[in-house]
């Protein structure tokens, strides 16, 4: 079932259904699978560095240790920012009203890469976005978290989208700031993907 967000703009409150734009559902997908010599499907396990123990898919658990070596429960942890100031946990955006007060330029939007995209259904909000010269921006939390992501409302061909992004940290460079490129190994990427016919 589609989930809904509440937006507030110019004294008006607008409810809007959102649906994830899933690339697999637009273009299909490629899965890479491994088979042994008898044609049985294989999966990745792990082997210890001494070669003495083999572990399956769910053999490990993540834990947290204090500086004295004692184990900590998740509930005993707090999240702090770079200045060591504790961060409050912020509610999921579905439980709040998103105030559309800020806008950014196209260049500021292009300083981000998209982590996920949602299609929004709301003729009222679409009109507001179409009427704005700049791009509405706000912070979005799919679930409650300490660090919401920047999100943007984009209109394309009469359809409304929410792009959830990540800042890239690009900066202007000058002649003196010369890079000495150290060629990275051309390592395999694990992502397998299908080509698509955009053009």
């Amino acid at each position, binding site marked *: 079932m589609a989930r809904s967000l509440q937006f507030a703009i110019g004294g008006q409150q607008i409810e809007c259904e959102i649906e994830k734009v899933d690339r697999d559902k637009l273009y299909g997908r490629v899965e890479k699978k491994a088979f042994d010599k008898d044609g049985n499907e294989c999966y990745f396990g792990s082997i210890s560095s001494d070669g003495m123990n083999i*572990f399956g898919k769910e053999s490990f658990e993540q834990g947290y*240790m204090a500086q004295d070596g004692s184990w900590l429960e998740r509930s005993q942890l707090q999240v702090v920012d770079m200045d*060591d100031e504790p961060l409050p946990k912020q509610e999921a955006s579905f439980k709040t009203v998103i105030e559309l007060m800020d806008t950014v330029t*196209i*260049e500021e939007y292009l300083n981000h890469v998209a982590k996920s995209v949602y299609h929004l259904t709301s003729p009222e909000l679409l009109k507001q976005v179409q009427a704005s010269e700049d791009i509405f921006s706000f912070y979005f939390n799919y679930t409650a978290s300490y660090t919401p992501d920047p999100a943007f409302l984009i209109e394309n061909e009469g359809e409304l989208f929410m792009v959830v992004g990540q800042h*890239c940290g690009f900066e202007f460079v000058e002649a003196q700031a010369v890079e000495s490129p150290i060629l990275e190994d051309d390592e*395999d990427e694990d992502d397998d993907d299908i080509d698509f016919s955009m053009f």
Partner: protein
Amino acid sequence: MKVINIADGKARNSRVAMESKKRPKFTRYTDSQNQGVESARIVKNTLATDLKTLTKETSLEDLSQKLIDGDPELDIELFGKRIFDTSRIYLNSNNEPAGGVNLKELIYSPEGELKEQRDAKTVEGNINTEVPLKWSGKLMPKSECYKKFVFSNAYQIKHVDGLTFDFLFNMAKELDEQNAMMFLGAGKKNNEPLIISRNGKQFRAFLEGRVQDSKFMLILHLTNLEMKPVPVAEQ
């Protein structure tokens, strides 16, 4: 830092630097005394003590009794032990190390139906080959381009010496003046998608340039998704 072989509008090319600089979120966990904590990977079980092995010759009902009578699910030596370095290994459906592994690609339609199965091939990256990435001449206004495509990755292209500063600065200036993004393709006909790393995803690419006084910013935006809703029948 990666290297990209790129040509400008006059078909002059150079190998320059390219970096992804996604800004991480500056957060960390601390304990109640504001002291830093360390995350650790610990062993829960091994192949000898996981459910599949334990139920190989015993029914679930009989295993329940064995769990009451003893601790067959625990490896006393390893349970709770912190583990650092491990390597990946292929296991078959019987949880045994697999030999003669063959990788296959299974291609599914948007409806989720298996369309094709083929042997997986290694695909090399194509951004730093003999053939430079050329300007296609296909310019799209920025105001249109950002709406049409979802850019899921981006790299900043940087100079490696004084000559390449001028080379890239002029490219950025030209694009900035036109307020447009240039479609960039790989291959001899510069119409192939870009592959950044070996066996990496295929991306369509657009080059964006900005200039501020004597400084520039040249960004390679990568996309493999159009900004369009999933058709209702396919949702």
